[in-house]
């Protein structure tokens, strides 16, 4: 074919050469109506490839064979209805827009049809509306496909993320186990050196040995903490209805030594009964109250614990009058091994809040650190209020 001629043809009738193909399945028992619809379709902006079915069986067969872009169906088809086609497509796992082309439908029927999943309907006495309905249906179809693709890719990402999290946890667990043995050798033998050869070498040697002992001991405690962090959520024990007042009182008892020594006053308001997995909520309180005691300011520590219910979740607050956290660090304090002070100022590895965050998140909650008016910090975290069945819970 001569290209110049083609271009001329396009210029005179651009729409024809560029018409997109559209496969249409017509479900219509009246041949005259079918012709009318077809001729109307051919006037539009599409190059129509039509196929036809009359009975439900035929429809099923045609839809399997050709997978059309759009289905145009009469409402009343004698033995069956156009809306039944929707059910057939669902059975076949096909998501194809269906436009009803029928005689007058009552308002109630029309609404019912749309509810069932009909994309649009066009009255036979105003077939002129057909092209517009087609455009709408195709737009609807591509939106649906887009949404399905997005949902699929999201599901895939969620799965990948879950897998990579599981790998990471497995890695931390194995690494901390396997690292312990050689490290214990270093720690034990440097300690043995320190014990047996102190004063027998020279002062420098004693200092070097002490550095080695300190380094090994610190590494051991880091690994223990990493192990504790990776264990969060690995305990395969069920959830149990637990009184949070008891949890907090037990925590206060555990911290009695520091509380007495600092003269701290720890108070709590009425707390709810919640579904809790093992000692996880106690661990959260232990770290939060423990931190409030550790990072105390010049005045006597005062720590208040309270809970309020908002919708489907409880918000717990642990407020202190300690040294506070400047807002720019309010998020990084939750990162594992992140510390805001030297070990000489405040001991610790920076794992407690990371463990709290992991526990709270695993229960679908959030945790935040906020500055308290008049100095100090308020930690607040949420916990679902829903009553799960005993012994069961989300599988993680």
């Amino acid at each position, binding site marked *: 074919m001569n290209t110049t001629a083609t271009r001329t043809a396009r210029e005179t009738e651009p729409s024809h050469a560029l018409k997109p193909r559209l496969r249409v399945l017509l479900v219509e028992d009246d041949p005259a109506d079918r012709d009318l619809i077809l001729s109307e379709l051919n006037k539009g902006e599409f190059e129509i490839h039509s196929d036809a079915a009359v009975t439900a069986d035929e429809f099923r067969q045609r839809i399997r064979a050709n997978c059309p872009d759009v289905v145009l169906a009469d409402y009343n088809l004698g033995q069956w209805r156009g809306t039944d086609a929707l059910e057939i497509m669902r059975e076949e796992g096909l998501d194809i827009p269906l436009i009803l082309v029928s005689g007058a439908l009552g308002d109630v029927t029309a609404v019912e049809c749309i509810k069932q999943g009909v994309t649009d309907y066009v009255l036979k006495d105003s077939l002129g509306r057909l092209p517009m309905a087609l455009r709408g249906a195709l737009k609807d179809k591509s939106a649906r496909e887009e949404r399905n693709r997005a949902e699929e890719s999201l599901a895939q990402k969620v799965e990948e993320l879950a897998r990579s999290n599981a790998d990471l946890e497995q890695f931390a667990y194995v690494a901390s*186990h396997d690292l*312990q*043995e050689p490290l*214990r*050798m270093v*720690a*034990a*033998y440097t*300690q*043995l050196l320190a*014990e047996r050869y102190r004063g027998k070498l020279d002062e420098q040697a004693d200092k070097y040995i002490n550095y080695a002992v300190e380094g090994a*001991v610190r590494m*051991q405690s880091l690994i*223990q903490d990493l192990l504790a962090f990776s264990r969060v959520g690995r305990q395969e024990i069920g959830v149990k209805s637990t009184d949070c007042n008891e949890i907090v009182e037990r925590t206060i008892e555990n911290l009695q030594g520091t509380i007495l020594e600092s003269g701290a006053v720890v108070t709590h308001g009425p707390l709810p009964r919640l579904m809790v997995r093992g000692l996880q909520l106690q661990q959260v309180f232990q770290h939060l109250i423990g931190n409030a005691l550790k990072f105390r300011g010049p005045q006597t520590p005062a720590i208040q614990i309270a809970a309020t219910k908002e919708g489907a979740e409880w918000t717990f607050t642990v407020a202190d009058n300690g040294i506070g956290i400047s807002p720019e660090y309010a998020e990084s304090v939750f990162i594992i091994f992140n510390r805001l002070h030297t070990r000489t100022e405040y001991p610790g590895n920076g794992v407690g809040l990371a463990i709290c965050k992991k526990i709270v998140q695993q229960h679908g909650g959030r945790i935040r650190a906020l500055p308290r008016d008049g100095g100090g910090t308020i930690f607040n975290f949420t916990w679902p209020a829903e009553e799960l069945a005993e012994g069961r819970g989300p599988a993680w």
Partner: protein
Amino acid sequence: MVTTMAEILLVDDNPADLDLTIDALAQSPWRTHVSTVSDGAEAMAYLYREGKYSEAIRPHLVLLDLNLPRKDGRAVLADMKSKPALRRIPVVIFSTSQARKDIESSYELGANSYVSKPPTLSEWVSAVKVLNEFWIGCACLPREVES
């Protein structure tokens, strides 16, 4: 009255850990004679007095590591506890692992106790001393089964 010194068999592939235990046993109140093997297959040969171990003395106590080359500690334990000639010998599992499943399965297989290797020197020494005091100084031990 003639008293024989208690015989202890240490099964561990890490010479550093063996030395620590030997050192700690030397500091313990009850004197013991210690033999060492470094894998599970050797441990079985020792216990059955095979090959170079034909003169071996049947131990009064075995300290057994779990992760061993060749024959694993778990397999040694299972083997010992299923043989009438060996099942009476107390076996203390002495392993780095603190994993729940290792602890449970060791008792399931018939371990007489499970001690996880302590992280520091002083804890190590005191754990070994406690084992020495209990198993050698306090517990009544079985006699060897006549074969």
